[in-house]
């Protein structure tokens, strides 16, 4: 089933549509803040360059982070696949005799389907983040990477919590929050296994950094005797100090906060004389097809800081919500990541479910050219099997060697944009269309690659549509583009005309 097939149900869901309106509001606030802050572009470039520094030598940085983590007393497990990572955590839980695991919010553990794996060996797993907990009780998956239960109304949350409380809870935020706090507090205090992801891990100090508002990250790293942190390798930053520039950008773009309530640093297990914090700290470094991306145009995705801003910006996400994507990561970043991280087995339709409006690229705090990557994927996914992108010569925005200081300030995403039409693989793409449509596209491509003919067809179009918008209600053969809208009239006068007039006036 594709996103297109799941969309109608999402569009008909009134609650969901209401909730998604709030997502759009957040996007507007985040965008306004970015526009009003004078140094936003500089900060984005700097953060983008710092995030891309590991790409020039990812394996080297994995080695460095491993030795730093080991130096401060953590046990490091390197896992090639999501399945390996889940098995590793299961083995740890078995060996430690864990019975009750509490988690702080983590998309990486969603990616490796950890809860199911632990439950299969009889470990009770409790999500500590309120949104994740709501989704867990509902038996669903997060529909947003920052606000996992965005699709749930207060009434639905009350219905989910009331059976646990043993009485009917009022449909009231404070009361529901208070119930969750008390209920989860008991779990936190009795847990013997704490499970976290990592927002970042620093290669120089071996420090794991968690960013939270509720305190679930602090709970999971304070009380349980054993801590396991599942850390995808793209979370590595060369120096802990780099995060001074990155963390505020993350929180501004994720929740429109200048900083979250808590930032937690964990550097190894508890030390001599300390009475809380984990006695044992395991770090599971997860590859999960990320190393495959290095040296390809898709390596850009390894700079992602999981802020969720591109989800909020996306007009498709804003209409269908996260579940319609049926993937761990939804929205634009999910449409790029899902086929790549699954080795081409999941979400192959997702890159096509985009209008390529570019709002995601514009908002992204680390300058990932999401729209370009979506276009490339459309081409690369035409061949069945895993995505095998062409390796490109790497241009170095801020790719300093490991010994260099903070990378030079340069623009992320400055590599040449993805080739336009015809893109690599376009022929294959066309050959899968009905003959009349591929013929149409071929003619269109030939005509519009000649400037004169391009201008002539536009002039004709303007002439035909000049009276009013919408006289053409159906354009046969356009594949549904006029199913829910009329053909608009072309801009009168056209851009070229406006431009020449303007030049004349000077």
């Amino acid at each position, binding site marked *: 089933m594709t996103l297109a097939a799941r969309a109608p149900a999402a569009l008909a869901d009134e609650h969901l549509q209401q909730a998604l309106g709030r997502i759009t509001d957040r996007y507007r606030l985040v965008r306004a803040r970015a526009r009003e802050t004078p140094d936003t572009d500089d900060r984005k470039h700097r953060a983008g360059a710092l995030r891309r520094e590991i790409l020039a030598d990812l394996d080297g940085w994995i080695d460095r982070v491993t030795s730093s983590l080991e130096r401060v007393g953590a046990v490091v497990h390197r896992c090639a696949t999501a399945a390996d990572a889940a098995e590793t955590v299961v083995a740890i839980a078995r060996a430690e005799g864990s019975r009750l695991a509490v988690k702080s919010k983590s998309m990486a553990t969603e990616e490796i389907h950890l809860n199911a794996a632990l439950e299969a060996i009889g470990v009770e797993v409790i999500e500590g983040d309120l949104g994740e907990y709501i989704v867990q009780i509902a038996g669903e998956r997060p529909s947003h990477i920052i*606000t996992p239960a965005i699709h749930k109304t207060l009434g639905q949350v009350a219905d989910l919590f009331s059976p646990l409380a043993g009485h009917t809870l009022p449909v009231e935020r404070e009361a529901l929050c208070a119930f969750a706090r008390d209920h989860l507090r008991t779990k936190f205090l009795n847990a013997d296994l704490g499970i976290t992801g990592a927002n970042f891990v620093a290669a120089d100090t071996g420090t794991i950094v968690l960013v939270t*508002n*509720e*305190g679930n990250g602090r709970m999971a790293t304070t009380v349980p005797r054993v801590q396991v942190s599942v850390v995808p390798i793209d979370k590595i930053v060369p120096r802990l100090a780099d995060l001074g520039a990155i963390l*505020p950008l993350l929180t501004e773009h994720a929740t429109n906060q200048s900083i979250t309530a808590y930032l937690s640093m964990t550097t190894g297990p508890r030390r001599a004389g*300390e009475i809380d914090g984990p006695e044992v700290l395991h770090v599971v470094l997860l590859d999960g097809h990320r190393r495959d991306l290095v040296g390809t145009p898709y390596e850009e995705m390894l700079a992602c800081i999981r802020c969720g801003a591109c989800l909020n910006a996306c007009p498709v996400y804003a209409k269908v919500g996260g579940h319609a994507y049926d993937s761990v990561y939804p929205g634009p970043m999910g449409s790029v990541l899902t086929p790549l991280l699954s080795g081409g087995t999941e979400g192959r339709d997702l890159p096509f479910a985009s209008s390529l409006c570019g709002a995601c690229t514009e908002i992204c705090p680390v300058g990932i050219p999401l729209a370009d990557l979506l276009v490339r994927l459309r081409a690369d996914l035409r061949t069945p099997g895993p995505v095998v992108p062409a390796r490109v010569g790497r241009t170095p925005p801020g790719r300093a060697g490991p010994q260099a200081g903070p990378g030079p300030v340069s623009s992320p995403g400055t590599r040449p944009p993805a080739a336009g039409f015809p893109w690599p693989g376009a022929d294959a793409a066309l050959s899968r269309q009905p003959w009349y449509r591929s013929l149409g596209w071929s003619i269109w491509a030939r005509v519009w690659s000649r400037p004169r003919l391009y201008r002539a067809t536009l002039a004709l179009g303007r002439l035909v549509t000049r009276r009013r918008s919408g006289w053409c209600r159906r354009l046969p053969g356009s594949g549904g583009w006029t199913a829910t809208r009329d053909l608009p009239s072309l801009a009168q006068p056209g851009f070229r005309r406006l431009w020449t007039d303007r030049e004349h006036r000077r």
Partner: protein
Amino acid sequence: MTDAVSLLSERLRANRCAVHGPVDRGHLGATIVAVLGALVDSRPVALPSAPDPLLDAPGVTAAFADWPGSVDVIRPDSPRWPDEIAGCCVGIAVATLAAADLGIVAVACSPGAPRSLTLLAPTILLVVRAETVHHSFEDAWGALASGSLASGALASGVSWISGPSRTGDLEMILTWGVHGPARVEVVIVTSDPPADVIGAAAGIDGAGIEVSR
């Protein structure tokens, strides 16, 4: 008051902390007692293990001893700690440093000041020394990250705290007080007390205290 300290106060208040001071060391004990007076009930107050250079200075211990209605103090080195820390009404800790521009305070854990000291009670009180306030978050973070602090190596656990625990998970409207403390009080203290104040501090009823929310 230096620029950084007044900016810190302003930003912490914007982040929903109550900020008091700056007071000098001689008035710290009285300030803490005045701030916490109404918040302390029969449940214990958690303090770092003695001797804490700030909190166990003579003026502060005297103020605690004179606490109106008396106060039950527990400390990490007491056998009561593991069972009773979750039931405390207030946790008090001394911050490692602070960043003024974002209004955030960092607390490093140690054997005498464990992680739970600032996590489990519904109210926490953080004492910030004015000389540890950095103007920018990047500088403060960098100072901690590169271990350039007097205290040396990076602690095994550091919590940066900017305000009360909160969630946006219920219909994206902020709701306060989830897993962490719902109330954060910050007392800013300047470095050197005038000599004559130290002895006299015990009985002072909140002189120099600025309370606002």
